[in-house]
């Protein structure tokens, strides 16, 4: 791991951003350049950090819970084709319901606390996990299952020893998607009603046309997302230890 590379990358991305602003001629109240945003960032740093705390908690909780529920749903579906037939439509539909229809229902059931926000995040996060993990398990080598059957394996042992490891590469790929959308999950969760969090703060800043502040918050969110993504990416590579990640050429 080169220490210089992230620096160059950051500088490059900032340059790209500035270029985008300059080339498209976007006015600062729509897309401010990195400079004014950097200024706002420094200005509001402590506040941003405190909001980040809230959002990060929601992200992590949402990710944890979403992963648990997603793997759980996938396991149920793989274990019972009957239940699968009933669950899959519900899961698919759950992805098609927009926030504003769901928000009041969530608040009604979970109140205005952290629960409803995490609930919303979970809803966004769990589907990629459930879907990929399920497909992965479905693609378990049939001969391995045959071998396990002949060995007189206990169903749970087959699951733990053969089916789940077979699906781990697919699961990892689903969790990568989930990790990338987790921050937006938390932000959307904050639309349910909140008084803290980066999503709240962004909406707030946006409503008051403090676009530079909004983009400062966005920057914080983006950096957090990247850090989270690459962290989880690393961990997932460890999880699928028998299949080292390789370049193609």
């Amino acid at each position, binding site marked *: 791991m080169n220490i210089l590379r992230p620096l160059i990358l950051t500088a490059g991305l900032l340059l790209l951003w500035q270029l985008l602003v300059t080339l498209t001629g976007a006015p600062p109240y729509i897309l401010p350049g990195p400079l004014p945003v950097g200024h706002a960032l420094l200005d509001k740093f402590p506040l941003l950090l405190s909001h980040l705390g809230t959002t990060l908690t929601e992200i992590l909780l949402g990710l944890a819970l979403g992963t648990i529920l997603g793997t759980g749903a996938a396991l149920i579906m793989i274990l019972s084709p009957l239940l699968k037939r009933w669950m899959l439509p519900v899961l698919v539909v759950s992805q098609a319901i927009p926030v504003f229809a769901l928000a009041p229902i969530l608040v009604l059931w979970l109140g205005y606390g952290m629960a409803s926000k995490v609930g919303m995040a979970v809803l966004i996060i769990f589907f990629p996990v459930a879907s990929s993990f399920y497909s992965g398990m479905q693609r378990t080598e049939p*001969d*391995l299952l045959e*071998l396990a059957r*002949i*060995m007189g394996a*206990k169903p749970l*042992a087959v699951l733990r020893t053969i089916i789940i*490891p077979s699906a781990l590469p697919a699961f990892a790929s689903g969790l990568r998607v989930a990790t990338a959308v987790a921050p937006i999950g938390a932000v959307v969760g904050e639309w349910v009603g909140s008084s803290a969090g980066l999503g709240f703060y962004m909406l707030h800043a946006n409503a008051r046309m403090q676009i530079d502040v909004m983009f400062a918050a966005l920057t914080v969110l983006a950096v957090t997302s990247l850090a989270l993504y690459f962290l989880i990416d690393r961990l997932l590579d460890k999880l699928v230890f*028998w299949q080292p990640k390789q370049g193609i050429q």
Partner: protein
Amino acid sequence: MQLSTPMQTAPDIVLEDLSLDFAGQPLFADLTLTLAGGRTTCILGPSGCGKSTLLKLMAGSPNLDFKGRIRFEPTTDSTVAWMSQNDLLLPWFTLLDNVLLGARLRGELSHEKRAKALALIREAGLTGYEDKLPTALSGGMRQRGALLRTLMEERPVILMDEPFSALDALTRVRLQNLAARLTVGATVVLVTHDPMEALRLGHTIVVLGGAPVRVLEIIEPAALPPREAGNPEVTALYASLLKRLMNGEAA
């Protein structure tokens, strides 16, 4: 290493009027064959004639849609160990864990099993590779792993699909002897392309051929296996068996 006594009486395997089609082509048509319990039957036959499929049928695969009956006599259940033609090692398990797979899947892992697995690994010449993942093993090492996994099962019926095909002559003989010792008293079905191997290890040698496949010949050497390669009976039978094989289905 001491032989563990076979746990149940090893049953006969009775195939009656077995028929199976693949893509409209009959692979088996009314095949009838009895494999003697407690004995080793070696199956020879041209590539693609249906040997692996036959083994899968005996293992009770639910994915094959056949007609006819496959019975074990006396009836027993959960009695089969199966070694497939490809090694089927789990890539996320070390060699040792792969050898212990059956025990793990049945929730029977124990200190004794581990000790036995390690002893078998030593006997198979794989000492030092216990903790390696399958990707770090050579083809023959993987095959030996799969064989050990099958031998660990200690089942009354053992089905093995070309278990020694990737081994050099010396290792092959060593593992043949190991397998023969550990499967005494069990009903062993061993698919092989090596007539010498069949003559060394089989109480009975069944030669398959033709399409749909039928039994071309059954050889029952007088001496008990494992026989020495230099044994005159083996030498005599070898020449005629090879000739029969080289004549192909026509015979």
